[in-house]
Protein backbone atom coordinates (compact mmCIF):
# COMPACT_ATOMS: atom_id res chain seq x y z
CA UNK A 1 0.00 0.00 0.00
CA UNK A 2 1.32 3.44 -0.95
CA UNK A 3 1.62 5.80 2.03
CA UNK A 4 -0.19 9.12 1.61
CA UNK A 5 2.05 12.00 0.66
CA UNK A 6 1.67 15.59 1.77
CA UNK A 7 2.65 18.92 0.28
CA UNK A 8 2.34 22.39 1.77
CA UNK A 9 3.30 25.72 0.30
CA UNK A 10 3.33 29.43 0.97
CA UNK A 11 4.43 31.84 -1.72
CA UNK A 12 4.73 35.58 -2.18
CA UNK A 13 4.74 36.97 -5.70
CA UNK A 14 5.43 40.65 -6.36
CA UNK A 15 5.67 42.68 -9.55
CA UNK A 16 7.80 45.82 -9.40
CA UNK A 17 7.93 48.28 -12.29
CA UNK A 18 10.92 50.62 -12.16
CA UNK A 19 11.12 50.41 -8.39
CA UNK A 20 7.37 50.81 -7.71
CA UNK A 21 5.24 47.94 -6.44
CA UNK A 22 2.47 47.10 -8.94
CA UNK A 23 1.14 43.70 -7.85
CA UNK A 24 1.46 41.60 -4.68
CA UNK A 25 0.08 38.13 -4.08
CA UNK A 26 0.14 35.74 -1.18
CA UNK A 27 -0.75 32.13 -1.79
CA UNK A 28 -0.79 29.23 0.64
CA UNK A 29 -2.23 25.76 0.74
CA UNK A 30 -1.89 22.10 1.51
CA UNK A 31 -2.43 18.92 -0.50
CA UNK A 32 -2.66 15.32 0.62
CA UNK A 33 -2.49 12.51 -1.91
CA UNK A 34 -3.91 9.02 -1.38
CA UNK A 35 -3.26 6.90 -4.45
CA UNK A 36 -4.81 8.69 -7.42
CA UNK A 37 -6.73 11.24 -5.33
CA UNK A 38 -5.54 14.58 -4.01
CA UNK A 39 -7.44 16.64 -1.43
CA UNK A 40 -6.26 20.25 -1.45
CA UNK A 41 -7.20 23.41 0.35
CA UNK A 42 -5.78 26.86 0.99
CA UNK A 43 -4.85 25.92 4.56
CA UNK A 44 -2.28 28.30 6.00
CA UNK A 45 0.92 26.94 7.46
CA UNK A 46 2.31 29.78 9.52
CA UNK A 47 5.88 28.54 9.46
CA UNK A 48 5.98 28.48 5.66
CA UNK A 49 4.32 31.91 5.44
CA UNK A 50 6.98 33.34 7.77
CA UNK A 51 9.74 31.69 5.72
CA UNK A 52 8.53 33.09 2.40
CA UNK A 53 7.91 36.53 3.92
CA UNK A 54 11.52 36.56 5.09
CA UNK A 55 12.77 35.43 1.69
CA UNK A 56 10.91 38.12 -0.21
CA UNK A 57 11.98 40.76 2.29
CA UNK A 58 15.59 39.83 1.57
CA UNK A 59 14.97 39.96 -2.19
CA UNK A 60 13.33 43.40 -2.01
CA UNK A 61 16.60 44.91 -0.87
CA UNK A 62 18.23 43.61 -4.05
CA UNK A 63 15.58 44.61 -6.56
CA UNK A 64 14.76 48.07 -5.21
CA UNK A 65 17.41 49.75 -7.36
CA UNK A 66 16.62 47.95 -10.64
CA UNK A 67 15.27 50.19 -13.41
CA UNK A 68 13.27 47.39 -15.05
CA UNK A 69 10.14 45.28 -14.82
CA UNK A 70 10.92 42.85 -12.01
CA UNK A 71 8.87 39.93 -10.77
CA UNK A 72 10.05 38.24 -7.61
CA UNK A 73 8.60 34.97 -6.32
CA UNK A 74 9.49 33.44 -2.96
CA UNK A 75 8.24 29.90 -2.36
CA UNK A 76 8.48 27.99 0.89
CA UNK A 77 7.43 24.36 0.56
CA UNK A 78 7.25 21.21 2.62
CA UNK A 79 7.08 17.93 0.75
CA UNK A 80 6.72 14.94 3.06
CA UNK A 81 8.51 16.81 5.89
CA UNK A 82 11.33 18.14 3.68
CA UNK A 83 11.26 21.93 3.72
CA UNK A 84 12.84 24.27 1.19
CA UNK A 85 12.76 27.96 0.28
CA UNK A 86 13.38 29.24 -3.25
CA UNK A 87 13.46 32.81 -4.53
CA UNK A 88 13.49 33.64 -8.23
CA UNK A 89 13.63 37.05 -9.87
CA UNK A 90 12.54 37.71 -13.45
CA UNK A 91 13.98 40.93 -14.88
CA UNK A 92 12.62 42.38 -18.14
CA UNK A 93 13.97 45.30 -20.14
CA UNK A 94 12.54 46.19 -23.53
CA UNK A 95 10.67 42.92 -23.86
CA UNK A 96 13.75 40.78 -23.19
CA UNK A 97 13.94 38.98 -19.87
CA UNK A 98 16.05 36.68 -17.79
CA UNK A 99 15.48 34.72 -14.60
CA UNK A 100 17.89 34.91 -11.72
CA UNK A 101 18.30 34.58 -7.98
CA UNK A 102 18.97 37.28 -5.37
CA UNK A 103 22.68 36.37 -5.30
CA UNK A 104 23.11 36.95 -9.05
CA UNK A 105 20.43 39.57 -9.67
CA UNK A 106 22.67 42.64 -9.92
CA UNK A 107 25.19 40.98 -12.25
CA UNK A 108 22.42 39.58 -14.46
CA UNK A 109 20.66 42.95 -14.55
CA UNK A 110 23.87 44.54 -15.83
CA UNK A 111 24.18 41.77 -18.43
CA UNK A 112 20.62 42.40 -19.59
CA UNK A 113 21.22 46.15 -19.81
CA UNK A 114 24.35 45.63 -21.87
CA UNK A 115 22.59 43.24 -24.25
CA UNK A 116 19.44 45.32 -24.69
CA UNK A 117 21.40 47.94 -26.66
CA UNK A 118 23.16 45.51 -29.01
CA UNK A 119 22.78 46.01 -32.78
CA UNK A 120 22.18 42.73 -34.61
CA UNK A 121 23.25 41.94 -38.16
CA UNK A 122 20.90 40.26 -40.63
CA UNK A 123 20.12 36.59 -40.05
CA UNK A 124 22.03 34.14 -42.23
CA UNK A 125 22.46 30.41 -42.06
CA UNK A 126 25.65 30.18 -40.03
CA UNK A 127 27.10 28.03 -37.26
CA UNK A 128 25.84 29.03 -33.81
CA UNK A 129 27.98 29.68 -30.75
CA UNK A 130 25.87 29.34 -27.61
CA UNK A 131 27.25 31.83 -25.08
CA UNK A 132 26.31 32.55 -21.45
CA UNK A 133 25.31 28.93 -20.83
CA UNK A 134 22.42 29.32 -23.30
CA UNK A 135 23.07 25.83 -24.70
CA UNK A 136 21.44 24.65 -21.48
CA UNK A 137 18.07 25.72 -22.90
CA UNK A 138 18.61 23.75 -26.11
CA UNK A 139 19.57 20.68 -24.07
CA UNK A 140 16.74 21.30 -21.57
CA UNK A 141 14.26 20.87 -24.41
CA UNK A 142 16.09 18.22 -26.45
CA UNK A 143 17.29 15.99 -23.61
CA UNK A 144 15.50 17.01 -20.40
CA UNK A 145 11.94 17.18 -21.68
CA UNK A 146 12.45 14.21 -23.95
CA UNK A 147 13.37 12.15 -20.87
CA UNK A 148 10.20 13.30 -19.14
CA UNK A 149 8.29 11.73 -22.02
CA UNK A 150 10.39 8.57 -22.08
CA UNK A 151 11.18 9.01 -25.77
CA UNK A 152 13.55 6.89 -27.84
CA UNK A 153 17.29 7.56 -27.35
CA UNK A 154 19.28 9.77 -29.70
CA UNK A 155 23.04 9.60 -30.26
CA UNK A 156 24.52 12.65 -28.55
CA UNK A 157 28.26 13.46 -28.78
CA UNK A 158 30.32 11.18 -26.54
CA UNK A 159 32.09 14.16 -24.98
CA UNK A 160 28.77 15.61 -23.78
CA UNK A 161 27.33 14.67 -20.40
CA UNK A 162 24.00 16.01 -19.17
CA UNK A 163 22.85 15.73 -15.56
CA UNK A 164 19.12 16.46 -15.50
CA UNK A 165 17.51 14.36 -12.76
CA UNK A 166 13.73 14.08 -12.72
CA UNK A 167 11.98 14.54 -9.39
CA UNK A 168 8.33 14.87 -8.47
CA UNK A 169 7.49 18.60 -8.48
CA UNK A 170 4.42 20.81 -8.57
CA UNK A 171 3.85 24.57 -8.73
CA UNK A 172 1.00 24.95 -6.23
CA UNK A 173 -1.15 22.94 -3.86
CA UNK A 174 -3.78 22.76 -6.63
CA UNK A 175 -1.52 20.91 -9.04
CA UNK A 176 -0.77 17.28 -9.77
CA UNK A 177 2.91 16.50 -9.11
CA UNK A 178 4.82 15.51 -12.23
CA UNK A 179 8.31 14.17 -12.91
CA UNK A 180 10.18 17.39 -13.65
CA UNK A 181 13.78 18.44 -14.02
CA UNK A 182 15.39 19.51 -10.75
CA UNK A 183 18.28 21.14 -12.62
CA UNK A 184 20.27 20.69 -15.81
CA UNK A 185 24.06 20.71 -15.82
CA UNK A 186 25.82 19.97 -19.10
CA UNK A 187 29.54 19.27 -19.09
CA UNK A 188 32.09 18.50 -21.77
CA UNK A 189 35.16 16.29 -21.57
CA UNK A 190 37.68 16.64 -24.38
CA UNK A 191 35.25 18.22 -26.81
CA UNK A 192 36.57 19.70 -30.07
CA UNK A 193 36.33 23.47 -30.26
CA UNK A 194 37.09 25.43 -33.42
CA UNK A 195 35.49 28.85 -33.43
CA UNK A 196 33.99 29.50 -36.89
CA UNK A 197 35.08 32.73 -38.55
CA UNK A 198 31.49 33.50 -39.50
CA UNK A 199 28.98 32.67 -36.80
CA UNK A 200 25.89 33.68 -34.87
CA UNK A 201 26.50 34.20 -31.17
CA UNK A 202 23.46 33.47 -28.99
CA UNK A 203 23.29 35.42 -25.73
CA UNK A 204 19.75 34.94 -24.38
CA UNK A 205 16.87 32.63 -25.18
CA UNK A 206 13.23 33.67 -24.81
CA UNK A 207 11.83 30.18 -24.51
CA UNK A 208 11.51 26.77 -26.01
CA UNK A 209 9.42 23.66 -26.24
CA UNK A 210 9.58 19.98 -27.07
CA UNK A 211 6.77 18.16 -28.86
CA UNK A 212 6.83 14.45 -28.01
CA UNK A 213 4.48 13.63 -30.90
CA UNK A 214 6.68 15.05 -33.66
CA UNK A 215 10.00 14.91 -31.71
CA UNK A 216 10.56 18.53 -32.75
CA UNK A 217 12.43 20.96 -30.50
CA UNK A 218 11.64 24.67 -30.79
CA UNK A 219 13.96 27.31 -29.35
CA UNK A 220 13.17 31.02 -29.58
CA UNK A 221 16.38 33.02 -29.41
CA UNK A 222 15.82 36.47 -27.91
CA UNK A 223 19.25 38.11 -28.20
CA UNK A 224 21.98 37.14 -30.64
CA UNK A 225 24.39 38.81 -33.01
CA UNK A 226 21.76 38.10 -35.69
CA UNK A 227 18.81 39.34 -33.60
CA UNK A 228 15.92 37.16 -32.48
CA UNK A 229 15.16 33.99 -34.44
CA UNK A 230 13.53 30.59 -34.03
CA UNK A 231 15.02 27.11 -34.36
CA UNK A 232 12.74 24.16 -35.11
CA UNK A 233 14.53 20.84 -35.54
CA UNK A 234 14.13 17.21 -34.52
CA UNK A 235 16.27 15.89 -31.67
CA UNK A 236 18.23 13.78 -34.14
CA UNK A 237 19.05 16.87 -36.22
CA UNK A 238 20.10 18.82 -33.15
CA UNK A 239 22.31 16.00 -31.85
CA UNK A 240 24.00 15.76 -35.25
CA UNK A 241 24.54 19.54 -35.35
CA UNK A 242 26.44 19.77 -32.04
CA UNK A 243 30.05 20.15 -33.12
CA UNK A 244 32.01 21.37 -30.13
CA UNK A 245 32.23 22.90 -26.69
CA UNK A 246 34.76 24.52 -24.40
CA UNK A 247 35.30 25.26 -20.75
CA UNK A 248 33.34 24.62 -17.59
CA UNK A 249 29.56 24.88 -17.34
CA UNK A 250 28.33 28.48 -17.17
CA UNK A 251 25.23 29.39 -15.19
CA UNK A 252 22.53 30.42 -17.66
CA UNK A 253 20.44 33.26 -16.21
CA UNK A 254 17.31 31.36 -15.81
CA UNK A 255 14.89 28.85 -17.07
CA UNK A 256 11.27 28.97 -15.96
CA UNK A 257 10.00 25.69 -17.26
CA UNK A 258 6.30 25.38 -18.08
CA UNK A 259 4.65 22.01 -18.42
CA UNK A 260 0.96 21.23 -18.01
CA UNK A 261 0.54 24.88 -17.06
CA UNK A 262 2.87 24.55 -14.07
CA UNK A 263 5.80 26.98 -14.07
CA UNK A 264 8.90 25.88 -12.16
CA UNK A 265 12.43 27.21 -11.94
CA UNK A 266 15.15 24.93 -13.28
CA UNK A 267 18.75 25.93 -12.58
CA UNK A 268 20.67 25.45 -15.84
CA UNK A 269 24.36 25.32 -16.70
CA UNK A 270 26.24 24.54 -19.92
CA UNK A 271 29.65 25.24 -21.43
CA UNK A 272 30.09 27.45 -24.48
CA UNK A 273 28.86 25.19 -27.24
CA UNK A 274 28.96 25.22 -31.05
CA UNK A 275 26.33 23.84 -33.36
CA UNK A 276 26.16 23.76 -37.13
CA UNK A 277 23.64 26.10 -38.71
CA UNK A 278 20.13 25.39 -37.40
CA UNK A 279 18.24 28.34 -38.91
Amino acid at each position, binding site marked *: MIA*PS*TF*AIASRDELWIRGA*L*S*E*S*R*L*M*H*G*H*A*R*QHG*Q*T*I*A*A*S*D*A*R*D*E*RLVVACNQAIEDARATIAALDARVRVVARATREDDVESVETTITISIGGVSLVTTPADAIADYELLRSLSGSKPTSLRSLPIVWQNGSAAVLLHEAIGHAREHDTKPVAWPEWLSVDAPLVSRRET*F*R*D*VPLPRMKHLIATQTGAPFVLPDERIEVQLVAGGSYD*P*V*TDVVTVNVAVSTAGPFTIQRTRTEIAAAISGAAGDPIRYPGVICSR*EGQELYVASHAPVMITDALT
Partner: protein
Amino acid sequence: MSETYRKWGRVVRYENGVTVRVEEAGEASEIDEVFRAQPAQTRVSVPHLDARDVDAYMAQTLLSVPHLDARDVDAYVAQTLLSVRPLTIERLIVSAGIAKHETNGITWSEESQRVHLALIKPPLRVLIDLASFDIAIIETIAAALVRAGDEREPPERIRLAPNVSAALLPSLVGELAMEQAGGGLDGKGQPVETRAVTSDPPPNWYRPGYAIRPVRAWLNLRALPFGSIDAGAPIAVALLAPVEGTTLRVLCVDGDDVFPATVDAAHIAAVSRDTPTWYPYAAGSFGAEMML
Protein backbone atom coordinates in the same frame (compact mmCIF):
# COMPACT_ATOMS: atom_id res chain seq x y z
CA MET B 1 -10.73 50.14 -7.60
CA SER B 2 -10.82 50.27 -3.85
CA GLU B 3 -13.56 47.69 -3.31
CA THR B 4 -12.59 44.23 -2.20
CA TYR B 5 -13.47 41.28 -4.37
CA ARG B 6 -13.94 37.90 -2.66
CA LYS B 7 -14.38 34.45 -4.09
CA TRP B 8 -15.13 31.11 -2.47
CA GLY B 9 -14.89 28.03 -4.61
CA ARG B 10 -14.72 24.28 -4.88
CA VAL B 11 -13.42 22.34 -7.87
CA VAL B 12 -13.15 18.67 -8.72
CA ARG B 13 -10.63 18.10 -11.48
CA TYR B 14 -9.56 14.92 -13.24
CA GLU B 15 -6.12 15.33 -14.72
CA ASN B 16 -4.46 12.48 -16.59
CA GLY B 17 -5.47 9.80 -14.11
CA VAL B 18 -5.44 11.81 -10.89
CA THR B 19 -8.52 13.38 -9.30
CA VAL B 20 -7.92 16.62 -7.39
CA ARG B 21 -10.45 18.23 -5.04
CA VAL B 22 -9.62 21.84 -4.28
CA GLU B 23 -11.39 24.24 -1.97
CA GLU B 24 -10.21 27.75 -1.38
CA ALA B 25 -11.26 31.31 -0.75
CA GLY B 26 -9.49 34.44 -1.83
CA GLU B 27 -9.78 38.18 -1.90
CA ALA B 28 -8.30 40.95 -4.00
CA SER B 29 -8.20 44.71 -3.96
CA GLU B 30 -6.53 47.53 -5.85
CA ILE B 31 -5.51 50.63 -3.93
CA ASP B 32 -3.27 53.40 -5.26
CA GLU B 33 -2.62 51.34 -8.40
CA VAL B 34 -1.29 48.38 -6.42
CA PHE B 35 -3.17 45.10 -6.93
CA ARG B 36 -3.11 42.77 -3.95
CA ALA B 37 -4.49 39.24 -3.64
CA GLN B 38 -4.42 36.74 -0.83
CA PRO B 39 -6.37 33.83 0.58
CA ALA B 40 -9.47 35.09 2.40
CA GLN B 41 -9.05 34.86 6.12
CA THR B 42 -12.38 33.21 6.73
CA ARG B 43 -10.93 30.19 8.46
CA VAL B 44 -8.48 29.54 11.26
CA SER B 45 -4.79 29.21 10.67
CA VAL B 46 -2.58 26.78 12.52
CA PRO B 47 1.12 27.13 13.30
CA HIS B 48 2.17 23.87 11.73
CA LEU B 49 -0.27 21.58 9.99
CA ASP B 50 -0.44 17.88 10.53
CA ALA B 51 -2.96 15.56 8.95
CA ARG B 52 -5.58 15.98 11.70
CA ASP B 53 -5.34 19.76 11.51
CA VAL B 54 -5.93 19.64 7.79
CA ASP B 55 -8.97 17.39 8.15
CA ALA B 56 -10.43 19.78 10.71
CA TYR B 57 -9.54 22.75 8.56
CA MET B 58 -11.17 21.34 5.47
CA ALA B 59 -14.30 20.41 7.41
CA GLN B 60 -14.97 24.07 8.07
CA THR B 61 -17.48 25.51 5.70
CA LEU B 62 -16.62 27.69 2.77
CA LEU B 63 -19.58 29.89 3.62
CA SER B 64 -22.55 28.64 1.62
CA VAL B 65 -20.71 27.07 -1.31
CA PRO B 66 -22.27 23.64 -1.80
CA HIS B 67 -20.19 20.49 -2.02
CA LEU B 68 -19.54 19.06 -5.47
CA ASP B 69 -20.39 15.57 -6.54
CA ALA B 70 -17.38 14.06 -8.29
CA ARG B 71 -19.51 11.39 -9.92
CA ASP B 72 -20.38 13.61 -12.90
CA VAL B 73 -16.70 14.11 -13.60
CA ASP B 74 -15.92 10.42 -13.11
CA ALA B 75 -18.74 9.37 -15.45
CA TYR B 76 -17.69 11.81 -18.16
CA VAL B 77 -14.06 10.71 -17.94
CA ALA B 78 -15.11 7.07 -18.28
CA GLN B 79 -17.28 7.89 -21.32
CA THR B 80 -14.47 9.84 -22.93
CA LEU B 81 -11.90 7.10 -22.39
CA LEU B 82 -14.23 4.64 -24.10
CA SER B 83 -15.29 6.88 -26.96
CA VAL B 84 -11.82 7.75 -28.24
CA ARG B 85 -10.48 4.23 -28.60
CA PRO B 86 -8.18 3.20 -30.36
CA LEU B 87 -6.60 6.66 -30.29
CA THR B 88 -4.07 7.74 -27.67
CA ILE B 89 -4.98 10.39 -25.13
CA GLU B 90 -2.07 12.74 -24.54
CA ARG B 91 -3.93 14.95 -22.11
CA LEU B 92 -7.38 14.80 -20.52
CA ILE B 93 -8.44 17.39 -18.00
CA VAL B 94 -12.06 17.46 -16.86
CA SER B 95 -13.30 19.76 -14.13
CA ALA B 96 -16.49 20.85 -12.44
CA GLY B 97 -16.53 23.88 -10.22
CA ILE B 98 -18.84 26.00 -8.15
CA ALA B 99 -18.00 29.48 -6.93
CA LYS B 100 -19.52 32.34 -5.01
CA HIS B 101 -18.36 35.91 -5.72
CA GLU B 102 -18.81 39.12 -3.75
CA THR B 103 -17.89 42.69 -4.57
CA ASN B 104 -19.49 46.13 -4.38
CA GLY B 105 -22.19 44.67 -2.14
CA ILE B 106 -23.24 42.26 -4.90
CA THR B 107 -23.10 38.51 -4.47
CA TRP B 108 -23.45 35.98 -7.25
CA SER B 109 -22.73 32.31 -7.90
CA GLU B 110 -21.69 30.32 -10.90
CA GLU B 111 -21.13 26.71 -11.83
CA SER B 112 -18.72 25.63 -14.51
CA GLN B 113 -17.65 22.59 -16.45
CA ARG B 114 -14.46 22.47 -18.48
CA VAL B 115 -12.89 19.82 -20.70
CA HIS B 116 -9.50 19.85 -22.35
CA LEU B 117 -8.58 16.85 -24.48
CA ALA B 118 -5.52 16.30 -26.65
CA LEU B 119 -5.89 13.22 -28.84
CA ILE B 120 -2.99 11.72 -30.74
CA LYS B 121 -2.61 9.92 -34.01
CA PRO B 122 1.06 10.62 -34.78
CA PRO B 123 2.05 13.01 -36.18
CA LEU B 124 -1.39 14.59 -35.61
CA ARG B 125 -2.77 15.98 -32.37
CA VAL B 126 -6.30 17.36 -32.09
CA LEU B 127 -7.10 19.87 -29.38
CA ILE B 128 -10.60 19.99 -27.91
CA ASP B 129 -11.77 22.58 -25.37
CA LEU B 130 -15.35 22.49 -24.12
CA ALA B 131 -17.48 24.20 -21.51
CA SER B 132 -19.85 21.28 -21.08
CA PHE B 133 -19.63 17.52 -20.67
CA ASP B 134 -20.52 16.96 -24.32
CA ILE B 135 -19.52 13.48 -25.46
CA ALA B 136 -20.99 13.66 -29.00
CA ILE B 137 -18.44 16.18 -30.24
CA ILE B 138 -15.59 14.07 -28.90
CA GLU B 139 -16.97 10.98 -30.64
CA THR B 140 -17.28 12.90 -33.92
CA ILE B 141 -13.74 14.25 -33.79
CA ALA B 142 -12.21 10.95 -32.65
CA ALA B 143 -13.95 9.10 -35.49
CA ALA B 144 -12.54 11.58 -37.98
CA LEU B 145 -9.01 11.46 -36.54
CA VAL B 146 -8.94 7.66 -36.81
CA ARG B 147 -9.49 8.00 -40.58
CA ALA B 148 -7.09 10.92 -41.11
CA GLY B 149 -4.81 10.68 -44.12
CA ASP B 150 -1.97 12.84 -45.42
CA GLU B 151 -1.72 16.61 -45.53
CA ARG B 152 -3.59 18.37 -48.35
CA GLU B 153 -3.99 21.85 -49.71
CA PRO B 154 -6.98 23.54 -48.06
CA PRO B 155 -10.25 23.28 -49.98
CA GLU B 156 -11.31 26.44 -51.80
CA ARG B 157 -14.51 26.62 -49.79
CA ILE B 158 -14.62 25.22 -46.32
CA ARG B 159 -16.91 25.34 -43.30
CA LEU B 160 -15.60 25.76 -39.77
CA ALA B 161 -17.37 23.72 -37.10
CA PRO B 162 -18.53 25.76 -34.06
CA ASN B 163 -15.71 24.48 -31.86
CA VAL B 164 -13.21 25.73 -34.47
CA SER B 165 -14.87 29.08 -35.18
CA ALA B 166 -15.08 29.85 -31.45
CA ALA B 167 -11.31 29.55 -31.13
CA LEU B 168 -10.85 31.85 -34.14
CA LEU B 169 -13.32 34.55 -33.10
CA PRO B 170 -11.02 36.50 -30.70
CA SER B 171 -8.57 36.92 -33.61
CA LEU B 172 -11.30 38.47 -35.76
CA VAL B 173 -12.18 41.40 -33.49
CA GLY B 174 -12.26 44.44 -35.77
CA GLU B 175 -12.42 42.23 -38.89
CA LEU B 176 -15.85 40.65 -38.49
CA ALA B 177 -19.15 42.10 -37.23
CA MET B 178 -19.67 40.71 -33.75
CA GLU B 179 -21.25 41.57 -30.43
CA GLN B 180 -20.73 40.96 -26.76
CA ALA B 181 -23.56 38.67 -25.73
CA GLY B 182 -25.36 39.95 -22.66
CA GLY B 183 -26.06 38.00 -19.50
CA GLY B 184 -24.57 37.51 -16.07
CA LEU B 185 -22.04 39.70 -14.26
CA ASP B 186 -18.44 40.55 -15.03
CA GLY B 187 -15.33 40.43 -12.84
CA LYS B 188 -16.38 43.57 -10.98
CA GLY B 189 -19.99 42.56 -10.48
CA GLN B 190 -21.29 44.79 -13.29
CA PRO B 191 -23.98 43.48 -15.63
CA VAL B 192 -22.73 42.17 -18.97
CA GLU B 193 -24.93 43.84 -21.59
CA THR B 194 -25.26 43.05 -25.26
CA ARG B 195 -23.07 45.54 -27.12
CA ALA B 196 -21.58 45.81 -30.57
CA VAL B 197 -17.85 45.05 -30.40
CA THR B 198 -16.00 48.18 -31.46
CA SER B 199 -12.51 49.63 -31.19
CA ASP B 200 -13.63 51.51 -28.05
CA PRO B 201 -12.45 50.24 -24.67
CA PRO B 202 -14.68 47.31 -23.63
CA PRO B 203 -17.25 48.24 -20.96
CA ASN B 204 -16.69 45.13 -18.86
CA TRP B 205 -13.94 43.49 -16.83
CA TYR B 206 -12.50 40.00 -17.18
CA ARG B 207 -11.26 38.32 -13.99
CA PRO B 208 -10.46 34.64 -14.56
CA GLY B 209 -9.31 34.14 -10.97
CA TYR B 210 -9.15 36.14 -7.76
CA ALA B 211 -5.36 36.37 -7.90
CA ILE B 212 -5.34 37.78 -11.44
CA ARG B 213 -5.65 41.51 -11.94
CA PRO B 214 -8.89 42.20 -13.81
CA VAL B 215 -8.60 43.72 -17.29
CA ARG B 216 -11.11 45.34 -19.60
CA ALA B 217 -12.21 42.83 -22.23
CA TRP B 218 -15.03 42.01 -24.57
CA LEU B 219 -16.82 39.09 -22.95
CA ASN B 220 -18.72 36.29 -24.64
CA LEU B 221 -18.02 37.23 -28.26
CA ARG B 222 -20.69 36.30 -30.80
CA ALA B 223 -20.38 36.75 -34.57
CA LEU B 224 -23.45 38.29 -36.21
CA PRO B 225 -25.05 35.90 -38.73
CA PHE B 226 -24.86 36.73 -42.43
CA GLY B 227 -24.61 35.01 -45.81
CA SER B 228 -25.39 31.39 -46.44
CA ILE B 229 -23.62 28.21 -45.45
CA ASP B 230 -23.03 25.56 -48.12
CA ALA B 231 -23.88 22.40 -46.20
CA GLY B 232 -22.09 20.32 -48.84
CA ALA B 233 -18.73 22.03 -48.42
CA PRO B 234 -15.86 20.29 -46.61
CA ILE B 235 -15.78 21.03 -42.89
CA ALA B 236 -12.94 21.67 -40.45
CA VAL B 237 -14.02 19.62 -37.45
CA ALA B 238 -11.14 20.22 -35.05
CA LEU B 239 -8.03 22.24 -34.35
CA LEU B 240 -4.66 20.54 -34.81
CA ALA B 241 -2.78 23.42 -33.18
CA PRO B 242 -3.62 26.58 -31.25
CA VAL B 243 -4.87 29.41 -33.47
CA GLU B 244 -2.11 31.76 -34.63
CA GLY B 245 -3.63 35.03 -35.80
CA THR B 246 -6.05 33.92 -38.48
CA THR B 247 -4.07 30.83 -39.46
CA LEU B 248 -5.81 27.61 -38.58
CA ARG B 249 -4.28 24.16 -38.64
CA VAL B 250 -7.31 21.93 -38.82
CA LEU B 251 -8.62 18.44 -39.39
CA CYS B 252 -10.90 18.55 -42.47
CA VAL B 253 -13.64 16.16 -43.51
CA ASP B 254 -14.64 16.07 -47.19
CA GLY B 255 -17.09 13.25 -47.76
CA ASP B 256 -15.18 10.07 -46.95
CA ASP B 257 -11.82 11.85 -46.91
CA VAL B 258 -10.23 13.18 -43.74
CA PHE B 259 -7.00 15.17 -43.90
CA PRO B 260 -4.99 17.87 -42.12
CA ALA B 261 -4.69 21.28 -43.76
CA THR B 262 -3.58 24.80 -42.96
CA VAL B 263 -6.25 27.40 -43.63
CA ASP B 264 -6.12 31.19 -43.83
CA ALA B 265 -9.33 32.28 -42.10
CA ALA B 266 -8.96 36.04 -42.47
CA HIS B 267 -12.04 36.37 -44.68
CA ILE B 268 -15.33 34.93 -43.44
CA ALA B 269 -17.96 34.45 -46.17
CA ALA B 270 -20.89 33.47 -43.93
CA VAL B 271 -21.92 32.90 -40.32
CA SER B 272 -24.68 30.44 -39.49
CA ARG B 273 -27.96 31.51 -37.92
CA ASP B 274 -28.06 28.40 -35.76
CA THR B 275 -27.96 28.88 -31.98
CA PRO B 276 -24.28 29.22 -31.07
CA THR B 277 -22.49 27.32 -28.31
CA TRP B 278 -20.27 28.97 -25.68
CA TYR B 279 -16.61 27.90 -25.55
CA PRO B 280 -13.88 28.81 -23.04
CA TYR B 281 -11.63 30.75 -25.44
CA ALA B 282 -10.26 34.16 -24.35
CA ALA B 283 -12.96 35.86 -22.23
CA GLY B 284 -15.66 33.62 -23.69
CA SER B 285 -16.55 32.97 -27.31
CA PHE B 286 -19.67 31.64 -29.00
CA GLY B 287 -19.08 29.16 -31.77
CA ALA B 288 -21.37 28.98 -34.79
CA GLU B 289 -20.71 27.32 -38.11
CA MET B 290 -18.81 29.63 -40.44
CA MET B 291 -17.96 29.52 -44.12
CA LEU B 292 -14.68 30.70 -45.61
